[in-house]
């Protein structure tokens, strides 16, 4: 393993505090994620894990401290094609129908010039992303007609289509059936094998569990654990290990 100091950093968070409506949701969080790492951010509801992720991608402003992506502070970061973001769910299934293909193609906008149609290579990238999440046969269907798990797969495809170096997922498995979770895990494993950095927030990792090589546990806006993953952390209800040498977390 390369030493933490020399390896390139995908995400650097320094002394980050985030204020949501007057309440400090994150308090002095510090974090370094090297390129190629697969990190799970765990914690109970309200622990600040989604806030951390949303601040990292620039959706929330930092009250104090700083977030850097690939070495550039987020407010000045422009290379968004290197980042793939999967929100918790399709936040606004708009008032007008949109097909799976249309939604996935919006993942290419960071590298698409204004007033320019899709290039052949971009169309191919869309097809490949749809294959990866096993949704190619539904490309012409309206996203609103899909099940929750299938919609989530479309969102993953939208993030994968630009072939990002850093993949950030907010609760990718929440409310998703096991078959879709397995498809995610396979898609993400393939990316990890190619060196993609993955940061995912989760309640319950499910089939993703085996991919994780580091977990971070948040509690009331602070990091209370940062290290190798525990078997005991991968489920929503975390128990004391029975007689093992490892102490339980968040019991």
């Amino acid at each position, binding site marked *: 393993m390369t030493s933490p100091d020399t390896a390139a950093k995908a995400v650097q968070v320094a002394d980050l505090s985030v204020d949501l409506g007057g309440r400090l949701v994150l308090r002095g969080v510090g974090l370094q994620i090297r390129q190629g790492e697969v990190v799970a951010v765990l914690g109970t509801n309200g622990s600040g894990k989604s806030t951390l992720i949303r601040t990292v*991608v620039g959706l929330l402003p930092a009250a104090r401290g700083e977030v850097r992506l690939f070495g550039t502070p987020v407010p000045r970061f422009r290379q*968004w094609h290197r980042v793939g973001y999967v929100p918790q769910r399709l936040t606004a299934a708009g008032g007008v129908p949109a097909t799976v293909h249309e*939604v996935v193609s919006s993942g290419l906008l960071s590298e698409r010039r204004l007033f320019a149609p899709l290039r052949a290579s971009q169309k191919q990238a869309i097809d490949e992303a749809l294959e990866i999440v096993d949704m190619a046969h539904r490309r012409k269907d309206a996203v609103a007609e899909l099940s929750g798990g299938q919609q989530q797969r479309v969102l993953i495809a939208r993030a994968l289509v630009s072939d990002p170096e850093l993949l950030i997922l907010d609760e990718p498995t929440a409310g998703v059936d096991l078959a879709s979770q397995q498809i995610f895990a396979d898609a993400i494993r393939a990316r990890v094998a190619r060196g993609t950095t993955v940061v995912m927030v989760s309640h319950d990792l499910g089939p993703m569990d085996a991919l994780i090589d580091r977990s971070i546990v948040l509690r009331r806006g602070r990091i209370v654990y940062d290290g190798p993953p525990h078997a005991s952390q991968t489920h929503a209800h975390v128990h004391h290990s029975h007689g093992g040498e490892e102490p339980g977390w968040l019991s």
Partner: protein
Amino acid sequence: MTLFQLEFMQRALIAGLLTGLSAPAIGTYLVQRRLSLMGDGIGHIAITGVALGLLTGSAPVLTAIIVAIAGATAIELVRARGKASGDVALALLFYGGIAGGVLLIGLAGQGAATLNTYLFGSLTTVSPTDLYVVVGLAVAVLVVAVGLGPQLFAVCQDEEFARVTGLRVQLLNLVIAVMAAVTVTVAMRTVGLLLVSALMVVPVATAQQLTRSFRSTFVVACGIGVVACLAGIVTSYNADVAPGATIVVLALAGFVVAATVGTLIRRRQGRVAPLADEEPEIGVPEPVPHVVSAGHPHAHNPKCGHAAVEHGDHVDYVHDGHLHAAHGDHWDEH
């Protein structure tokens, strides 16, 4: 046919064609963002602009567009700041717009008749200068609506994701607001300010009864808009009624037809292709174990004297106040 030889009708038809294209084009984005009534609000604000033009003696189209853009920008900024009172702030702007308009018209000494031509459209009032302005603005709106389609689609579909792809979301939102304001002004001469929003929303609602993609909704809505505008203008000339009302009534009639046809089509498709069983059933609880009637010695049959009750796909027999149903070689309590 004499109708198409009349110069004012030619101008009205050209204006109608462009209105029919541009109003649903921008309307598709507004509906997708669930801001269907934004056009209505801008229309109200534009009334003040028209009145300002009449009061100062300058071209009403020009003042309307300036005031409409200012109003649309204000709405967008209020929305983007996202405080709980955004809804109320919009209402304040709407009422302020219409009240200010009526007040200024009164000061200008113009009667209700002048205002009416702006509120509900008028065929005879499209002057050659108006036409040039309308053509220029409508073409600009269409170029932006089509050319920036992918970007605007992304912003309207999922604003947060659009921000993370590095799109300048605030700027694009402002573009949409300004385009809506320009479209309102374009449509002012044919549909009128009070009904312009209908031409932005109704064709889109009609189109999506039959479409599944954003792009086809966009194209079909523009087609419906053009047909409704041209047919409405011709009807309005023949029947001597306000064009705006005619256009909107025709568009609504189209919606009723499309909604009926769409429902029938979906029902037929639903019957032909039942839902595919795609998700494997994992974690579905086993059915509750059935209760076997203990040591039931009696075999029910239709003639045994116990009352028979139809129960879904089988028959239950009433036996001492409870129901027995045949299950293999024994009887279940139902």
